[in-house]
């Protein structure tokens, strides 16, 4: 699978583990619930760690754990649900998260530009090329 990261199309280097899936080697991403339940074991994982945040999750609960992650995945279940945009803003600007913020799930290619403006730097959309192209839609903005 390929993703867009920092405007480039690259090979995906992350595996999302379902809550009941066994931990595997490499870079893994888990749900917030699983992280909270298995924090102790997971933090010993040799590869990089990521956490998947739903629009209904409260990211402030991550607290100091945020420093343990190389990836935060913002999983959009409904493109009309704009909470992910505020979550991205908070992660990048309030909590100063330096790692990869990736928008996953179901969203419109045309939302990628807005995501990129609030701190999202990676995308795993259905249509890679279409999404990549939208990132150049605007050269000016007010905010």
């Amino acid at each position, binding site marked *: 699978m390929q993703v867009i990261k920092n405007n480039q199309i690259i090979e995906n280097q992350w595996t999302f583990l379902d809550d009941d899936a066994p931990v595997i080697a490499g870079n893994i991403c888990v749900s917030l619930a699983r992280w909270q339940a298995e924090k102790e074991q997971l933090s010993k994982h040799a590869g990089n760690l990521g956490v998947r945040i739903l629009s209904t999750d409260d990211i402030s609960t991550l607290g100091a754990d945020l420093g343990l992650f190389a990836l935060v995945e913002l999983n959009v279940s409904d493109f009309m649900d704009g909470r992910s945009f505020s979550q991205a*803003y908070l992660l990048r600007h309030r909590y100063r998260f330096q790692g990869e913020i990736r928008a996953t799930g179901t969203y419109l290619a045309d939302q990628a530009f807005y995501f990129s403006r609030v701190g999202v730097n990676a995308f795993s959309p259905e249509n890679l090329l279409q999404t990549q192209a939208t990132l150049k839609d605007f050269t000016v903005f007010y905010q």
Partner: protein
Amino acid sequence: MYQYNHNDQILIEERVAQFRRQTEQFLNGEISEDGYRNLRLRNGVYIQKHSPMLRVAVPYGVLNSKQLHKLAHIARTYDKNYCHVTTRQNVQFNWPKLEQIPDILAELAEVQMHAIQTSGNCMRNTTSDHLAGVCVDEIDDPRPYCELIRQWTTLHPEFDFLPRKFKIAVSGSLHDRAATQFHDIGLHLVKNDAGEVGFRVLVGGGLGRTPVIGQIIKPFLDKKHILSYLEAILRIYNLFGRRDNKYKARIKILVKEEGLEKFNEMVEQEWALIRDGLEVSEERFTTMKSHFSPFDYDEKAALNITFEQYKHENKTFAKWVEHNTLEHKIAGYRVVFLSLKHPETPPGDLTSEQLDTIADLAVRYSFGEVRSTHRQNLVFADVKQADLFQLWQLLNAANLATPNIGTATDIICCPGLDFCSLANAGSIGIAKEINEILDDMDYLHDIGNVNINMSGCVNGCAHQSVGHIGILGVDKKGVEWYQITLGGSSANEAAIGERLGAAVPKNEIAQTVGTILEVYVGQRLHEETFLETVNRVGIEPFKAKVYASH
């Protein structure tokens, strides 16, 4: 008025290119129906009953002559030769073809206009007082602040997919002419004890299905903090506003469910974290204000009093001056209302010919600018009194001088069943019938100020719940009925109208309005207005008369 700089222009051109590409992709099946729906809504494109509808933004109601000519051209080229002024001071085209809308938007961009965020669950056009900068009771001109807010809200990356639509209104005067108490955020320019200008901020007001009067969340906000404070409110709303039920998704419900105190705490907490560094500089305010500097008024304008003579000689002209013009802060000038409520035309409609005429008259008589009002009329804000008689004659010839501003035939009306896919009832026909029973101008003027607001459905586009007389179309098993409310107001003493009683069938509605006005005439004391009488006697006398024969 505000003139775009290079970046402003680039932004709207890039937006046009984006929408052109989105529309092509949709027509080629590369964007889903649901996806495209959300993209087109954010460009003002609705799919109506008969065809798409395009809602063009008129930021805080200010237009220039060039823009009016462009609207005329668009109506002529892409539509059926007319457009419609809305209650949010915008302009709608009811018959464009979807595939031509990108071309229309490109034409609009040539005159610094756009349709960005005129619909959809996002921050909408900021509205204001149509008398901004010229009225006698002004604390500060709201337009520079409106433009700041327009820019901040435009394509805001974080707040374009809100739980529901979000409307901001700004008033700079003692008298609220922008219905700020019925907006998601209402901003009143005020002065503190030290004489500094700031904002009184109201939150959680709104019309629609559940009308609510906004509450004061901040009695005085230093103006430099305006954008950070708006951002704090929007972030709290975006994160915590309800998304499970679209009828409970407006910020008014969040404020109600959390309680103002708790909501305020949430906002304050957020605001404290962002406000430092987001201040608007004095320099930016100054630059913005320079776009709205007073015109080069003729200092001797007050010396020419020929119009008094004309008033004396011509009673019709005198009536027009009395009803359709207002005092201006500069002696010798008047504010002139162009009535879009001619008895023969649907309220708020303008033909291409009228648009062109207005554009030309604006240049000749009012520094080339026009404003739209939330009661669906237009305003020439800066007319010399010496020009009034000539202007009146020209407006009269264009059917724009019906002397009914503020009267019972100055009806606010949505396009209703005639156009809108949401409506249960056709409001335009009723407006015509009301005009027919009130065709005696002397009687109309004797009744005086009555705001009749009529919506074709519960979404309340015509703000029926704040009409002195509100009329709401409801569908009862496929038949059009109308619910009537009395005593609503969107002015300083904001109030939501009280229901008169059972709904009235369509063929009785005009006559019912007639009866209500007769009761008022019978009940009023001295110079009492309709609203004052309703507030004093309550709805019972009206109810008794209206339902007497039922």
